[in-house]
């Protein structure tokens, strides 16, 4: 500066003025240059940050995409699992239904077997009663009496004896004796 001042002191006034103006402009330019450099540095910094953020975002996007894919796959799997579970459940229900139908059918068969067994057992009971007492449960329930036919025979014999007695008594009555000649005549007339 002292050199510049000593030089400018030697210069004409007009030139000195021009020189001063140029020096001032240079200061302004320098300041602008510094400012621009600082801005450039800041911009470059922002640019770098932005670039790194973009990279991170891209990475995140990729990650999201991957997660979405995984999620979609999971959903698909879940849907498939659910479909399988529903199908299994439906199949199980059908199996249960079939098993119950089979069981009911077996139960009906069992019922008919039991009826047959009971029928036979009750027939055996009849036989046991006949052997032990001579009286059958069935006969009583049928409305019969023990050895019904036998009793009928006894009854018939009793009635025949009763009738014979009645006839004998009739023969001994007065009216029988009074009508005796008439019967003799009738017998003779009936003969061929």
């Amino acid at each position, binding site marked *: 500066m002292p050199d510049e001042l000593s030089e400018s002191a030697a210069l004409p006034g007009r030139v000195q003025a021009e020189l001063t103006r140029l020096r001032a402009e240079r200061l302004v330019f320098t300041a602008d240059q510094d400012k621009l450099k600082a801005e450039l540095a800041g911009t470059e910094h922002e640019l770098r940050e932005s670039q790194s953020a973009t990279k991170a975002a891209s990475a995140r996007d990729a990650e999201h995409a991957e997660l979405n894919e995984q999620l979609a796959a999971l959903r698909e799997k879940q849907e498939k699992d659910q479909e399988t579970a529903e199908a299994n459940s439906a199949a199980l229900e059908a199996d249960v239904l079939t098993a119950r139908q089979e069981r009911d059918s077996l139960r009906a068969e069992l019922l008919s077997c039991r009826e047959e067994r009971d029928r036979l057992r009750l027939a055996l009971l009849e036989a046991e009663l006949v052997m032990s007492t001579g009286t059958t449960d069935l006969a009583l329930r049928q409305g019969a*009496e023990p050895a019904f036919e036998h009793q009928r025979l006894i009854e018939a014999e009793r009635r025949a004896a009763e009738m014979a007695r009645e006839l004998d008594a009739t023969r001994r009555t007065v009216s029988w004796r009074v009508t005796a000649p008439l019967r003799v005549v009738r017998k003779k007339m009936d003969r061929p």
Partner: protein
Amino acid sequence: MTSLRTAGVLTPDRPVGHLFEIRGWAGGVSRVDEVTVTIAGTSANLLPELIPGAPEGSLGWRAVTGARVPAGPQEVLVTGPDGAVLSAATVRVGTLLGEEPLWLGELSTPRADTTVEGHLVLVQGWALLQGKAASLIEVMVEGGGTVRARTRLPRPDVAAELPRFDDAAVSGFEALVPVDLDFGEERTLAVHVRYRTEGVGEVLSPVRTFTLRKPEADAEDTELADELAADTARAMARVTTVTDPKHVLVFTHSLHVGGGQLWLMELLTRMVTDHGWQVSLISESDGPLRADCAELGIEVHVTTHYRNSTVAAYEGHVAELARFAKCSGAEVALVNTLGGFGGADAAKRAGIPTAWVIHESFPLSTFAYLNWGAVKPPPAVWNRWQRTLAETDRLLFVADSTREMFLPYSKPERCRTVRYGTPMEKFGGRTRAEVRQQARTMLGYAPDDVVLLSLGIAEPRKGQGALVSAMERVHRVYPEAKLSIVGMHPTPYGLEVARSVERAGLSGVIDLVPIQPDPLRWLQAADIFVNSSDVESLPRSILEAVCCGVPVAATDVFGAREMLIDGESGWLFEPNDVDALTVALLRALGTSPSGRRDMAKAAHEQLLPWLDPAGYAREYSEILTDLARTGRPNPAGEESA
């Protein structure tokens, strides 16, 4: 001149019906009405009739029975004016083998060509087959399937009409046949009845048609029900309470002594003492068990019977119970019996997770008919009942068969079978010989007697009448068989069972014992236990018999078939069939004492896993704990995670 009186009877050459005519002649009389013809002890109506082949000078007659004559050989007496027997004969009332048996009876309901209102068809009547109550009566209603009727029901009116028929007094039968109709739907249906006795034959009734109409749902009722339910929901939303996860609110029907109540008391005792539960209890009616609750520190609130007769009454009662439930501090609810749906509904509205124990193996229609009549509750309340079944968090049953019956109302994952045990588990499936001997001596049994035991309150469902009929046949080949029927009380049914024993001359064979608070002695004395009920979910009496080492013959119904294997651990037989019951008794009596012991042992081994009552108490505690933890339903009604 004295005239000798004579008479003859022309006996028919084949059996005759209950009303019949018989012919004969009388000599030595001037008019037919001078003689009397008595058939089976009753004077017959006598009419003059020409009898070809009658002795000369005699008068022919025709005698017509004035009243129905019982089946069997019947004496016919012809007596003169002085009462002297002129002739006697025997006539057989009945049919020949292979012919359709004689049938007397009446199908009282449903009446032909009438309209019946309700959810089911009540088929009632009386019948005698060859003069005896039939062994099996099957009722077939179109759309309702075949149902075996309860038989041996008292019919004093029939007994008065047919005084000489021993079984007339127990000739009644009844069946409830549910038919699936929509509300408001009516359908013309056909019913016919099959009457059968093995060895006698069967009779199929003519088809009778009638109309069944299910009550129509009233739209205003439905609207009112929704409106009142919304009011309750709003009221519930205004209340916030602090609840305790170890506090259970119990709804039950009664605090009187009875099977269901004793089961509950045993459960609550163990839950309080062994599992640390706090219990609050709401009962429809008061009773002596309230004192037991007090001893356990259980708060009891006695309300009225559930008011199911109208929508307003139902919603009002449920709203009151819901408020009570909400303020109880309980975190979980336990409802006892199928009829307790008002309690289950209230707990649900209070937002309390609920387990509902259903002991009854009845369809809803049958249960409703037996408890409330043919057309109750009204459709809107009926829908609440079904919805409550569908939405209750856990439905608990004592038998798988009962669970299966109710599955259509709920979801399989909500339904679970928890069988109960008995404190008699401590006997270990045997009775010591000296204890048995002592019990038999005290009850007056001889050492050679084979003691059969029936335990249960005398009522048509338990089939004591059928048991008497079966014993009538069995004791003739097993005179050493003696039957004790414990549970008699003087209802029309109980009294008729007693009269049946007298009529059959079985007073020395069948011992009728009043209801006993502790029937242990009879179990200790018994050789064979007989359960002849037509509906049983899990008969406690069978458990007790098994615990005492008594082999069991039981009807093949619901829980009984889950407890016994026919021929291995007991004898099963079809319900409401006297023939089947007779054969079961014959099978049991025909099994040697060692065979019977093996049978009892097998039954005990089979039931051992759930005989200990501590087991089901623990299971209930776990279910309720789980419900308290996970089961509180969100507003959508689904369980939270």
